[in-house]
């Protein structure tokens, strides 16, 4: 009875996987790449992501098999699919580890200037392993609580309304931007995470026929949080301020002062560990499914441990912020390509199988 992810929880899960550490950099990234009124681009890219989601929904609607593996292996045997699975697993686990490194590097700058970042990273990985070895229902249950603990941060934005000014928006749209294409790719990667639903759907309570709408709701929530925060940032800071501030959202939060407490950004940023954790764990969870498909003898604990250790070894020397950013850009680009490509490949496979007359499972 309880062992299914309800659509409501799926929406939360999607929002929590999507939103991550990029949230803090987003207004700056928009200002640099798109210039004036860059916040509008969030809505535009969100619409492109919706099209991507539509592709995924088509895969799920016309699927021939219980899960992605069955769809693929109906055409090509697991033996031939293994390298592709491993590549996918490696990309996602690398993305996961790099997002973790990115978070830790900011944490180090903010609070632990004298602490070795590796030790902080290892602590984060222990947490990732602890949640990652649980089953998907437990991960979903924990995510709900994490959502409740973190969603309040968004409402802190209300505090800034009296300090905003519409004049700062300027009447120009997308002027003074540096690189629109790179900006779109970066913004697209900020929305990534929704593609995990391709692996999640067998675990979702599908008793309600329109359950997939919850994926759109989750994505809509991410869009609202991103666009409102960026909009307020554009109202609060000038364009040039946004361009030179590393983490504008953190500066926004730092501005909040109440009688009992000040500089709450130090706590709020740490609270983001929880959101990062969900992103990391879900990518690793999907990667572990892929790895276990290739080597069925592996248990969940073993596969998660192997993925973490392998990715950590590959990115061992990547610890400077700029290096992490470069790696993230490349791996993020590959992950974005996969998010678009994977459903297209699956749709082609489904098309071929339907043409050949395979029965729907």
């Amino acid at each position, binding site marked *: 009875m309880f062992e299914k992810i309800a659509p409501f*929880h799926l929406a939360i899960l999607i929002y929590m996987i999507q939103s991550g550490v990029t949230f803090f950099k987003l207004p700056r990234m928009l200002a640099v790449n798109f210039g004036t009124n860059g916040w509008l681009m969030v809505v535009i890219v969100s619409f492109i992501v919706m099209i991507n989601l539509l592709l995924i929904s088509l895969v799920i609607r016309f699927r021939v098999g219980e899960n992605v593996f069955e769809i693929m292996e109906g055409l090509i045997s697991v033996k031939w699919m293994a390298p592709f699975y491993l590549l996918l697993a490696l990309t996602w686990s690398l993305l996961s580890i790099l997002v973790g490194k990115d978070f830790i590097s900011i944490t180090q700058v903010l609070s632990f200037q004298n602490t070795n970042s590796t030790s902080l990273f290892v602590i984060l990985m222990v947490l990732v392993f602890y949640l990652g070895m649980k089953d998907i229902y437990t991960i979903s249950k924990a995510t709900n609580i994490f959502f409740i603990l973190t969603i309040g941060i968004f409402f802190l934005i209300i505090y800034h309304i009296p300090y905003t000014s519409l004049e700062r928006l300027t009447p120009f749209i997308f002027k003074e931007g540096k690189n629109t294409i790179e900006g779109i790719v970066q913004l697209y990667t900020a929305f990534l995470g929704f593609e995990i639903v391709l692996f999640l759907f067998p675990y979702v309570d599908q008793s309600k026929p329109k359950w997939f709408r919850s994926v759109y709701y989750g994505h809509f929530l991410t869009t609202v949080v991103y666009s409102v925060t960026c909009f307020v940032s554009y109202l609060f800071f000038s364009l040039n301020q946004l361009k030179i501030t590393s983490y504008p959202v953190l500066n926004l939060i730092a501005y909040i002062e109440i009688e009992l407490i000040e500089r709450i950004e130090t706590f709020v940023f740490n609270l983001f560990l929880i959101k990062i954790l969900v992103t990391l764990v879900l990518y690793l969870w999907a990667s572990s499914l892929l790895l276990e498909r290739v080597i069925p003898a592996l248990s969940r604990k073993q596969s998660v441990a192997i993925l973490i250790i392998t990715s950590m070894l590959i990115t061992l020397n990547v610890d400077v912020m700029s290096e992490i950013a470069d790696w993230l850009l490349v791996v993020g680009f590959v992950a974005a390509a996969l998010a678009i490509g994977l459903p297209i490949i699956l749709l082609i496979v489904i098309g071929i199988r339907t043409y050949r007359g395979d029965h729907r499972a």
Partner: protein
Amino acid sequence: MIRRKPKKLIKKLKELNDQQQSEPSLDLSLYEQVVNELEGCSDSEDVFFPEHHVHFVFFNHLVDTDRFKAEILDPFYHVHKEELDSLLNRSFYKPVTELKKIIEGVLDGQVAIFNQERVFLVNVAGPEKRNIQPSETETTITGPHEGFIESGETNLSMIRRRVKTSRLKVNKLPVGEVTKTNAYLLYIKGIANEELVSELTDRIERIEIDAVYDAHMLSQLIEDQPNSLFPQFIARERPDSIAAGLVEGKIIILLEGSPAVIIAPSSFFDFFETGDDYYQRWLTGTATRLLRFGAFIITIAFTALYVSVTSYHYEMIPESLLTTLAVSRGKVPFDPIYEALLMEITIEFLREAGARLPTKVGQTIGIVGGIVIGQAAVQAGITSNVLIIVVAISAIASFVVPSYIMSASIRLARFGLILLAGLLGNLGIVIGLTIIVIHLSSLTSVGAPYLAPLSPFFPSDWKDFLLRAPYKMMKSRPTISRSPKKRKLKE
């Protein structure tokens, strides 16, 4: 780790055991076998009436002497030989043929009557028990005051008097290889989930242990994750709470000799509810509940936050407060983490000493603790005034949590958070909270999610969660009960 016997093996062992016990030896009469079995029990009595060839075997201290005299001894004194058969045919003289049942009956406070080859058990049990009194661990202000006692039968009668329906079923299950303590599994047929009933029955039957002395001990033997810090079944000591549990479709486990009664399945948030919530006005009940959840957050995180802020994040303190804190901490030679641990451990000493000592001495401990720790420690410069306030508020908040068992678990978890805060500041607190959330999310109570109705989100149960909604709105039973009759009232 508790080992549980495999189901099939238990069944086979039981059958074998029953066969052995029920087949009387060819050489010895039942009376002789009983006497042999009770050999060495100097507290057992064997009264013989030579004129009727009748033996009474019993434990004097387990029977009610007056009833024994009136219902057994006197009739046998006055009966004629030819009337003996009609006397033994009385309905409360239960004929038995199995050695095992005779022994169990005698140990239960019944009198075994042996007349040639016939054996009867007469229930004149009257063990000493304390009177029904208000529960000390689960006190109430507005509701009924009576609490359970150590007698299983009295506790059963208190529940039956409140739930007057023939659908209230009771399964009796002996626990403990040596003690054979009776556990009673209660549920309302048609409201409780039968699968849960059989799952719990199964778990109790599979317990492999010599003795069980208390319901809290039993609950650890049948929990889903016995190694967890957090209790997965709530135990209550008041019949009104138990009656409410039964009506909600929960299953109740009562143990002979224990005033605590288990309710299964339980959610984490059940540990924050009391009878008073339901007897007060709904708004007051809701406010009190919110207060308790606030207390929970303070208990678990307040001291840790102090340690974190004073060790790593001074910038979080407003300027007006900073001076006070700096003056207060100026004299203290220790790091905040040591200072906080020192005070927290002292508070735990005080609590433990107060709990074990007689009430009058306990008060002295309170005064000594209050003055010596509170005033002298600050004056001596060992600790700061602000920390004393923080620790005191945390301690008071921990006692706002109504369940002592849960409160103790939360207090222990708090120490982990303090250590992490001392090590990593705010990040440490977040890491600690994350570990707690992940652990709580992975817990289940007879398969029901422990954090329900918050996660998974069961909106219909929110009327009795953070809120205590008006009774007109509370029309459904909790989802975790998995009751076949989800809606209340409609038969």
